[in-house]
């Protein structure tokens, strides 16, 4: 197929895919299951955050751990700007309110009214105010992104990661202090944030589509290539004319902007803005999504996000209470499964020794746990109920460790899903004709000219080398 034909085919397939996605969303909307809708909306929101984190972590190769700080800024600003008058009145009347007259008046509704745009200040046009608010949140978050990006000019690698982590935590800690409490209402936060946007599939997926569009196009533009060059080799990139300072800060700024957008949608999804929803845990979840899905790959990150959201939304059975013997059984099975998986892995990779001494310990512990569990179950002992809080985070962190060990680039690596992939078209494989030509080029036995050159050069080289050897 010709290149233009392929491009047309890809365009048609892209539109078809978008159509399928819309139909899919319509179906989910039609099913009417709140839980399912929420899960999908959350997927879109976290997808925005994870894909934007991927711009720094994956494309530019700077490990950034301060994403929750950017989201906090975007989230609080959006919440503050669109908070309804009733909620404001409730805060104002509350004795524990930490807000003042000025911050309570920060509302887009007020601004529109002051400008005489009363039509835009009604309840029907809340969506417009939401867009304005979320964009303002994104922009202010972007300014913070610029600030956080500046250390990246001096530091590299793990030290820089710690600095971004520090910035994220500073933003969170400062938000609770007296200085900023008028804006954030201290530890109380805001409740009653309009939630029709964050919980709506159309709003969230709309923003996700914009984010994915921008990130994908950016990755395959000249700027994206420059960022990838920085990831591969900073010194070489600089020696090839890439302005490191500008591009690194640019990556931070764009990423922070979308993180701010994600933060705005996230508070809307939660319907509250509190400080404890912007913990480092949030960044950790995105880190899992980016690392598991594929560092640098937008599609991979979306796959990773789907996994994280699934564990978070549908992982409740993990955290319910079970009796102790059930836990023992589960633990035993898990240990045995781990031992078997190690065995299979070592077998496939032909690693020696196939059986490490520690495997016997693991197997032994697993069998003991299984036996105790079984005996206790039949004997009616160990019946006390036990609830495993935090099991989801444990599973995600264990998953992250496993991915880092066995596939550090994630499931997709840096590869992006594309249609050529699906049709098994590979540009980087030679055609038979090219293969023959290549063999001719490199194999002296196939080319008289090269052979002659080689013999001539070989004699020259031995002479040259003898002089160097001295």
């Amino acid at each position, binding site marked *: 197929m010709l290149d233009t034909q392929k491009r047309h085919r890809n365009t048609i397939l892209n539109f078809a895919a978008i159509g399928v996605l819309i139909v899919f969303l319509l179906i989910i909307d039609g099913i009417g299951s709140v839980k399912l809708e929420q899960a999908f909306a959350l997927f879109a929101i976290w997808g925005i955050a994870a894909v934007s984190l991927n711009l720094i972590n994956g494309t530019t190769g700077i490990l950034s751990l301060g994403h929750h700080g950017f989201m906090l800024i975007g989230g609080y600003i959006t919440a503050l700007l669109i908070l309804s008058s009733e909620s404001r009145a409730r805060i104002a009347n509350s004795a524990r309110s930490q807000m003042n007259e000025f911050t309570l008046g920060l509302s887009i509704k007020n601004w529109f009214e002051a400008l005489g745009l009363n039509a835009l200040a009604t309840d029907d046009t809340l969506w417009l105010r939401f867009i304005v608010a979320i964009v303002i949140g994104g922009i202010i978050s972007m300014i913070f992104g610029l600030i956080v990006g500046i250390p990246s000019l001096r530091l590299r690698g793990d030290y820089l990661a710690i600095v971004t982590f520090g910035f994220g935590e500073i933003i969170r800690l400062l938000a609770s202090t007296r200085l900023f409490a008028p804006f954030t209402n201290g530890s109380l936060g805001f409740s009653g944030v309009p939630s029709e946007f964050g919980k709506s599939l159309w709003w969230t997926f709309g923003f996700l589509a914009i984010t994915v569009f921008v990130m994908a196009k950016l990755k395959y533009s000249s700027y994206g290539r420059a960022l990838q060059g920085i990831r591969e080799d900073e010194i070489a990139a600089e020696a090839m004319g890439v302005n490191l300072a500008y591009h690194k800060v640019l990556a931070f700024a764009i990423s922070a902007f979308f993180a701010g957008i994600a933060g705005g949608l996230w508070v809307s999804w939660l319907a509250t803005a509190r400080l404890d929803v912007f913990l480092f845990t949030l960044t950790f979840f995105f880190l899992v999504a980016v690392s598991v899905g594929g560092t640098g790959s937008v599609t991979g990150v979306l796959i990773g996000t789907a996994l994280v959201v699934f564990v978070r939304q549908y992982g409740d059975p993990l955290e319910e209470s079970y009796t102790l013997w059930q836990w023992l059984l589960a633990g035993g099975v898990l240990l045995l499964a781990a031992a078997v998986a190690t065995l299979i892995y070592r077998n496939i990779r032909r690693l020696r020794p196939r059986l490490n001494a520690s495997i016997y310990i693991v197997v032994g512990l697993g069998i003991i746990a299984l036996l105790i569990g079984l005996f206790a179950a039949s004997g009616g002992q160990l019946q006390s109920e036990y609830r495993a809080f935090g099991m989801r985070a444990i599973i995600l962190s264990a998953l992250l460790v496993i991915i880092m060990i066995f596939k550090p680039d994630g499931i997709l690596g840096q590869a992006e899903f594309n249609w050529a992939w699906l049709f098994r078209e590979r540009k980087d494989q030679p055609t038979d004709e090219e293969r023959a030509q290549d063999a001719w080029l490199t194999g002296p036995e196939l080319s008289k000219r090269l052979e002659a050159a080689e013999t001539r050069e070989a004699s020259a080289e031995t002479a*040259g080398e003898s*002089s160097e050897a001295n």
Partner: protein
Amino acid sequence: MAMLEIDDINKSFGGLQAITDLNLKVNEGEIVSVIGPNGAGKTTLFNLITGVYKPDVGDIRFEGNSITGLKPDQIVDRGIARTFQNLRLFTNLTVLENVLIPQHHKLKSTWFSAVFRTPGYLRREQQMREQALEKLSFFGPRLMSFRLYQPVYVLSYANRRRTEMARAMATGAKLLLLDEPSAGMNPKETAEITQIIKRMRDEGGYTILLVEHKMNLVSEISDRVVVLDYGQKIAEGDYQDVVNDPKVIEAYLGKKAEGDEAQNDQLTEGDGRTS
């Protein structure tokens, strides 16, 4: 006026004087080789010219303008590009991408127009692509067609060297600094790269400053040879004159003592044969 003028530069690392009072002129269209024993300061010289280090004293001028104290990317903008001794390619990117990245600094479009693929940006992208193919075609068909889309890590060592040279050319530089372009290549490939460097000057119009250890390559293509030892220029001129200079022989082989005569003869003899 010389294209590159280096005036009395000095550079020291702590107590180690790496470059002392070095003067160097490179005229337009010349191929100048810098040779010298290991640790003579050749790569330091390259690092000073390209802005990786700043000279302690002295001035470096390119086309009459001082480039001392500029950052590496600004110096590339002025028109000096380099290759690295031990290959610093963007290993996980394709050959084509490797040659596109050095053209990024000439891009006038903002990131916004790049994301939304404005016609202006697309035109530039097309130009960049043509430019990249042109530079890669210097090395014959071996980096073309399917190789364009292969990640660099699958390439052979020689092909990586070639890619790096194409990458340096793609910056749009007028002066290329090649740091051991034939390192790790077999005689056949060395002969080929020698021809290519010649063609780069003759057909591409580049001025070339190169560091090299293989004397046959140096003797074949250099218009001028500069010998460094302990950060000082000890000889400069025609290849034949330079290798017969007693100071150079001393730098390479140490002070003449009894028993060294035979080795000296061998050096001149061996080089005589290749040139």
